[in-house]
């Protein structure tokens, strides 16, 4: 496998959970390649935020999208060329704030792409304002007296919207995360990996997660159990919560066609 690093200076804060995601992702890419997927067929998109910088650190094709819109562009890529594995890196502000609608519709459509959700509970890059996943009382520059909103719960929300593979992992559990990403990408349908990602600068959750994170042994056998475990208070369970088979959007749309590969030249087009 060719080197997938770039020489771009890494500007994440030292200790940031994003390093774990970057490393785990590289590992999962190596596993995918080993399993026979061509590096050329893996394409990424990302939003704007600290999470988005992963784009510059990976020498892989993709689109550094607009804030909140990366998942829409990811869907466009998949529809154009369904042979590609499309992986979107989203922030919690990005994917559940500005871009919430695209996230839920991607799930609704069971679009065959993967969302890796960098859940750091804050808007890192814009200096730590509260995010849709920040807890009540979170103090940031836009909420100096503490947030008065209840956070969304991404797993139940995406489950309800129609995602067919839902997992959670932790940026500090390299192997777990790498394997989870690989499974998510292999899954046919909309898959999401919520990654617990400490932001050392604005919302340092390392000690919380280190204490509370527990690995699930198996996929919960029903949705209720999955929801219970995903929202449990006694622990942050990591693992796969849901894995289901449902028709995927692009196949419903055009079966085994590939729009980008099977293009017709003008001469063949009759109007």
């Amino acid at each position, binding site marked *: 496998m060719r080197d997938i690093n770039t020489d771009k200076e890494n500007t994440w804060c030292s200790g940031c959970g994003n390093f774990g995601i970057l490393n785990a992702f590289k590992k999962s890419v190596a596993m995918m390649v080993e399993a026979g997927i061509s590096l050329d067929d893996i394409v990424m998109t990302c939003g704007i935020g600290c999470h988005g910088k992963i784009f510059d650190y990976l020498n892989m094709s993709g689109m550094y999208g607009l804030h909140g819109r990366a998942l829409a562009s990811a869907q466009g890529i998949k529809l154009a*060329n369904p042979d590609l594995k499309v992986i979107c890196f989203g922030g919690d502000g990005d994917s559940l704030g500005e871009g919430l609608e695209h996230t839920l519709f991607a799930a609704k459509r069971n679009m065959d792409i993967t969302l890796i959700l960098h859940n750091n509970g804050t808007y890192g890059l814009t200096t730590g304002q509260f995010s849709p996943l920040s807890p009540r009382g979170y103090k940031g520059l836009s909420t100096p007296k503490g947030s008065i909103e209840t956070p969304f719960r991404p797993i139940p929300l995406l489950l309800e919207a129609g995602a067919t593979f839902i997992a959670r992992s932790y940026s500090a559990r390299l192997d777990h995360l790498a394997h989870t990403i690989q499974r998510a990408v292999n899954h046919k349908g909309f898959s999401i990996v919520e990654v617990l990602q400490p932001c050392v600068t604005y919302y340092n959750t390392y000690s919380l997660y280190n204490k509370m994170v527990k690995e699930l042994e198996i996929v919960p056998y029903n949705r209720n159990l999955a929801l219970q475990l995903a929202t449990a208070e006694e622990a942050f369970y990591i693992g796969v919560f849901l894995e289901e088979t449902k028709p995927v959007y692009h196949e419903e749309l055009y079966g085994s066609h590939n*729009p980008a590969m099977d293009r017709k030249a003008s001469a063949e*087009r009759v109007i």
Partner: protein
Amino acid sequence: MDERVFTITVGGRAGEGVKKAAQVIAHIFCAAGWNVCQADDYQSLIRGGHNFSTVSTSQTPVYCAHQNHDLLICFDQRSIDKHLKRLKDGALLFYNSDEAQCEQGIPIPMNSLMKKHYHGASNVSLAALAIFAALAGMTQEQLQEQIVQQYRRDIEENTAYAMEIYGMVSQRCDYGLDWSVNKPFHFVSGIQAIILGASKAGLDFFYGYPMTPASSLLHYAALKQESLNLFAIHAESELAAINMALGSAMAGCRTAVGSSGGGFALMQEGFSAAGMVEAPLLCILSSRPGPATGASTYTAQEDLFFALHQGHGEFGRVVASPDSNNRALSLSAELLALAWELQIPTILLTEKHLSEGMADIGMNHPELPEAKELPGTAGASYQRYAATPNGVSPLVFPGHKCAPDTVVKWTTLEHLENGVRSDSAADIKAMKDKRGIKAKAIQEACKRYQTTAEYGEGELLVFAYGSTVLELREAQKYSQRPFKIIAPIYLEPFPHEKLEQYRGKEVVVVEHSQSGLFAQFLKIKLDVQVKHLINKYDGRAFDPIELAKQIEELQDA
């Protein structure tokens, strides 16, 4: 040749098939080799209200529908009340006497007859067709044929209903239709022409979200999915649509988006992104009266400057507006081809009038350009934003078999040639210069196409763009004094090479805006002296004869 224009109008409630009846009549004229324009006036409602459809037709060219009727068929009282004053001398009026009263005109008990002939859902639109058929001297067989071909369902009931009404009409109109002619024709709306043109240039995906009068982009693309080899995606919002389109372009597909002003406003950030990632993207803006939700089903040209200055930041783009349904076809192909040649977003600006107005674009289409990328050498050395003399970088698509080991990075942040982000002063300047150079290339590239049109001759110079040109061309036929129509088709880059000859001249400007936006535009570009501004901004088209009179009066003044 007979130069008379016949105008036939059908009026009734939404849901009564007013448009359908007009369309069938229009088709009959088209097949007979006549020139035909159809315009639909409807409101933002689904049933009820007042809709009317007008067909103007002639053996000689006709460019837009007239507003005075030779034949008026009314399904309800409101249609009579609204249109009676617009009957020409000698015109015929038929009306549904179960619903309406009128001193003039010929009563037909359309409802009672429907009750008689239909068991389930009835269709008053057949009444209009039957009346027309009788007037035009169609045989029963010819009428039957139209019913079978055009209405497909409920053939028996429709036929019985139509035949009874046919039998009741003793009047005849001498249109002079030659029934032996059976000319092939292609009667389409402006929007349909746009989809057809883009398809011919290579369109793979149309991403949209319904918004009148642009919705039919989505509808027509969806309907023609198989035959045109493209996909229509109704996204969750306009924001989704344009960002999906960017993704599909990145993966190698020709894409377009479209909406009316409100939806286009929502696509601005994505439009700017197209400028930054250098995405080839055709954007179609079909205007209606604004601001905001405005008046959804009517026409306007209020979005000129809005279209010209879409998106934050500096980057090149092309904005052009078709002056006929035929031009809509070719321009749409040109704008998709230019988008790909230059890797820029292009805007096809049009308005409700042209979008939904129907005309025969003929069967022999001009040669249309194809949207092709500047191909690049794949491999490790590939750089998405490689500097080139004209600012256009070679394009390679991820995952394509001919592009092994190639990294293709499209980036909405300022970037290096390889697509990796940078905010160093030198890099920012370099990429801005690259895009700046491209802006020059755009000017050259556009010159390859027909950037302006002129119609007629005369001392008086009349400027217009978009479908207002159609109104003027029709008016030209009725003006005692000749005038010359000058129509910029490409608006940005402005075709100075063609239009500098008019710098400083005294001109008349005709447009559909309140404050005279196009006049301001011409003042900026050519420093023309706008002697007269004829502007209509009530959402309605001009009646060509009234427009002719207005222009004549100016000349007298």
